[in-house]
């Protein structure tokens, strides 16, 4: 049956701005960036997880009608576009500090949760990003 998730799609409202955020700030690398007809096929992946790419997709014609593109843009900027990326990190505080240094808008400090230490932020379009240092499960 199925093996792994290879590509996850995320609606972004500007692909250059998305590259600046996901590559320039979060540390993704570009995997594919090519024109595919009217579409710019743009995927990025973490260097430590190259098998899982994120397709940074623009909601735009002819994929969807201008009206639907507008509806998607409205929902994404209301935080209801369905885009959520959850990351793990070895050190939430260190990662928080590094992202801050890179100029990422970080509205919250790392918080201790039952499952680890994590913090959340938004990408420039309203998609949700959470970064967690997971507490290792107690060894059996």
């Amino acid at each position: 049956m199925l093996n792994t998730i290879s590509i996850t799609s995320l609606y972004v409202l500007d692909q250059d701005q998305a590259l600046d955020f996901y590559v320039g700030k979060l540390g993704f690398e570009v995997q594919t960036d090519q024109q595919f007809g009217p579409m710019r096929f743009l995927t990025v992946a973490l260097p430590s997880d190259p098998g899982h790419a994120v397709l940074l997709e623009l909601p735009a014609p002819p994929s969807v009608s201008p009206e639907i593109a507008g509806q998607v843009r409205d929902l994404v900027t209301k935080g209801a576009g369905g885009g959520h990326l959850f990351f793990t990190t070895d050190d939430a505080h260190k990662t928080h500090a590094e992202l801050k240094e890179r100029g990422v808008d970080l509205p919250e400090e790392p918080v201790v949760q039952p499952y680890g230490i994590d913090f959340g932020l938004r990408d420039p379009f309203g998609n949700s990003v959470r970064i967690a240092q997971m507490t290792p499960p107690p060894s059996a």
Partner: protein
Amino acid sequence: MSRASEDSNLRMLRARDAMDRGYAEPLDVPALARLAHVSEAHFIRTFKATFGETPHRYLQRRRVERAMTLLRSSDRSVTDICMDVGFASLGTFSRVFTEIVGEPPSVYRRRGPLAPVPSCFGMRWLRPSGETALSEKPGDAARP
């Protein structure tokens, strides 16, 4: 959708995120409006147009959701939980909780522990907004 309305959405989302994060603080509408870079009257109107309820009501539901979770996942007293989630008086807490949930905090607590889901998920899905919301008095919704 215009760029202006997208920018407005993002500003309202920023204020809503601040409520999700800072519900325990004495948040007020002027502070949230400043965060969204708009005037107070504009903020209340625009927030409601964007998310379908006033900022005041959103925050009340957020606080009640947090209280519901704490009541069923901790041993803290109802009074402590009331303060933990940002209510200044036990009377207001009990009234608002009962109005939104349909039963008082102490009765709700007897429902027992909640399933363990990540809190960010719980906060999105457990914020009460069911039929009881319809029973809110007209004056409540209009007040920021």
